[in-house]
């Protein structure tokens, strides 16, 4: 087990390193733009010289890696917020993304799993058909379409919420945890949740219907358990084996967030920072964002794989 985990971790680090290297060279090869202001130009040029931006690219790469390991310095923002360390710019934006996505998960996980269980128990009855049809609709329709729909219905038509985009930090009293801020987050949370609920529901239903037809369910019934006892004690437990890793990966995924939802609801998160960094060609931020997204993807993959071994003792990791 430990050997397997170590092997996976090493492989992950290798992959991460290769991707980051490719990204670094691709990004540093792009031409850099100077601002219009003459004084600023001189200042920036001096900084670039000091930071070694004019040296051969392989030397730049060495400097970049050295700075990360020695000072946790991921470069500087030259456009979005001038001369601020990139890590700091990024750090400010993780919290809003995480909060919105966390709320959405708290809302959608119980609902998704609950609906999935209900549909599986009522398999091939009308309740199942209704749920399955809605799930197909919600899985297929792009998330930005819900985003427009919830904005249109709950803000422009019904006026149930006071705003169609998220409040800025200053408007909501300087904290992401105020009630006012929460109210402004309701719409993005809803827009994020529809797809998540539908996906979880479909997955749960599929897994549970499979376990419900297994032989051990028949055994459980013959030894005298009622249908609900058998379902909760045996079928659900077994169905959870693939569902739990999926939930774990969603929890890691909340760090990344959804770019399009952040853009539509103007959430000051990681995704909108990425878009800003591309539009303004702020390369150090773009690089850091790339590192961030790659790391999240890799971590989610590895954690899911390893979690199988912990959740289900029958699965022996690393065996052929």
């Amino acid at each position, binding site marked *: 087990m430990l050997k397997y985990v170590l092997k996976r971790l090493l*492989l992950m680090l290798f*992959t*991460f390193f*290769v*991707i980051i290297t*490719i*990204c670094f060279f*691709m*990004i540093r*090869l*792009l031409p850099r733009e100077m601002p219009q202001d003459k004084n600023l130009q001189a200042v920036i040029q001096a900084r670039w010289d000091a930071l070694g931006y004019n040296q051969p690219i392989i030397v730049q790469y060495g400097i970049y890696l050295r700075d990360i390991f020695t000072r946790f310095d991921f470069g500087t923002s030259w456009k979005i917020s001038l001369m601020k360390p990139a890590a700091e710019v990024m750090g400010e934006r993780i919290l809003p993304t995480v909060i919105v996505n966390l709320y959405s998960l708290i809302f959608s996980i119980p609902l998704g799993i609950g609906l999935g269980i209900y549909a599986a128990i009522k398999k091939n009855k009308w309740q199942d058909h209704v749920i399955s049809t809605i799930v*197909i*609709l919600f*899985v*297929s*329709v*792009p998330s*930005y*379409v819900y985003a*427009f729909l919830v*904005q*249109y219905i709950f803000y*422009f038509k019904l006026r149930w919420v006071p705003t169609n985009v998220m409040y800025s930090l200053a408007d909501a009293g300087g904290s992401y945890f105020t009630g006012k801020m929460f109210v402004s987050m309701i719409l993005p949370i809803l827009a994020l949740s529809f797809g998540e609920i539908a996906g979880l529901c479909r997955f749960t239903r599929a897994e549970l219907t499979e376990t419900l037809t297994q032989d051990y369910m028949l055994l459980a019934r013959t030894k005298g358990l009622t249908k609900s006892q058998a379902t909760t004690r045996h079928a659900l437990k077994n169905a959870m084996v693939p569902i739990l890793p999926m939930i774990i990966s969603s929890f890691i995924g909340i760090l990344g967030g959804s*770019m*399009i939802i952040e*853009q*539509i609801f103007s959430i000051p998160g990681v995704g909108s920072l*990425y*878009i800003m960094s*591309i*539009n303004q*060609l702020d390369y150090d931020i*773009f690089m850091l964002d*790339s590192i961030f*997204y*790659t790391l999240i*993807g*890799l971590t989610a*993959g590895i954690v899911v794989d390893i979690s199988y071994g912990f959740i289900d003792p029958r699965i022996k990791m690393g065996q052929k």
Partner: protein
Amino acid sequence: MAKEKVQPQIVDDRFSFANDKVELHDQKLETKSRGYFKDAFIRFTKNKASVVATIIIGIIILFAVIVPLVTPANVQSLMDPYYAKKGPRNTTFYAMGINGTKVDTYTDRTLTYEYAKGIAADFNEEKPVEVLEDSKKSYYQPVVNIEKTEQTMQGRTVSTIYTAAIDKYLSVGFKYIQIEQSKYQVIKDWENEHNLKVLYPLVAENQYSFGVGTDEAANYWYKTNDKCDPVKIVEGEPVLMPFSEKMVLEENYLRDSSGNFVFYKYTGGGSTETAQYKVRVLYYNYYRFMYGREPNYIFGTDSQGYSMIYRLATGVRLSLIVAVLVSLVNFIIGAIYGAIEGYYGGTTDLVMERISDILVEVPFVIVVTLFQLHFAAKVGSFVCLLFAYISTGWIGTASSVRTQFYRFKNQEYVLAARTLGASDRRIMWKHIFPNTLGTLITSSVLVIPGVIFSESMLSYLGIVKLGDATSTSLGTLLSDASQIWTSYPSLMIFPAIIISLLMICFNLFGNGLRDAFNPQLRGSDE
């Protein structure tokens, strides 16, 4: 104990051979043989949802093919700034509500302004102004319907708020334009030929005119005060006119020294041919003069003034072309890569697996962005997008082909083929590959909605810019509408509906294919 062979001793001549002197053949099958694909097709047609989805996909594809064919060339490239962002309108279905109207609230002042456009359109030299009530019958009256009239108190004064449906095409009203003298004559001839009026008298610029110099100036043909309320002149003093059905606005047209209406103003240019005239046109009829048709836009117009139905069709076409191309190329690359991996195994497999392991972990959005930043200027956005999709998209296909190859490569029939001397290539493609075809086709079809979705998302976010004058993508249409859709919902609704339909139908279609190609499900539905 060995069995003794019993030789039948038949000597009796009562026996005779049953089929003596008859050549025996296998009997021909009475029923039609069913191949793998035929079988899959039959199972597919049993799935009603998938069949409906397939039909809808067919309709959308037909829409994307036929609309550009039947749209006249002058409409395809037509971008009319005055008719941008308008709702659906068609004169044939006008009474059914496809009339380009938008419901808004109006005050006395703004409602008069809308009515006045209809009144002015009925202008003739004998009777320049008609009663407001009579203008309601006019073909050019933008006010279609007043749905609600409410009295509200504002401070001490009572004001009336009207909720009215206004035809936004007719509401463009009058415009001042610059034309050459020769064109002026052409318009005159066209007017006589079609019995329609395009040219209307110019408006005087005096203390009663409003909005001089603005784009709306041509619509203020009646006398107003400085707040734009209609007035009449009583003994040299302007008196406010209250809004009523019977009101007669007081015209403020420009007249020459002999008291006739002035229809053009010379603004420059030398000879008679090139002399520039400033004229006041009824834009609706000017449009008819220019393009030989009424402004009929069944889906409205987009944010720039192109015909929405044409933009939608080209958008669907572009999105589908991207999706199908990506799916095809991924199919080919994935099949070859996976086949080599799975067939040869060992070190080859290990090395190739590591490569695809690394590639699959690069977040797609970063790949697209890097491609766009590096190559968009050289080869264009479209090619960049295709390459970005292809660079990592084949990995899924490759890994499923690889698994299938591992499953089948040690089977006896492969061994038999090898014993008979078949080459590696022949074994791979003739013997093993057909086993993977079902899963491959399913996954290739399911790639299509994924590509359509991510293309629209990338266009929406502005990472990819695919739209231009001749074509656009669905995502670009959405992105153009994103800032203004709350005021002009039709800009968002139509692309969103089409894209949702495409996504739903392709997913259903793909699921149907998966069920049909998956032989494990055989018999379970009966």
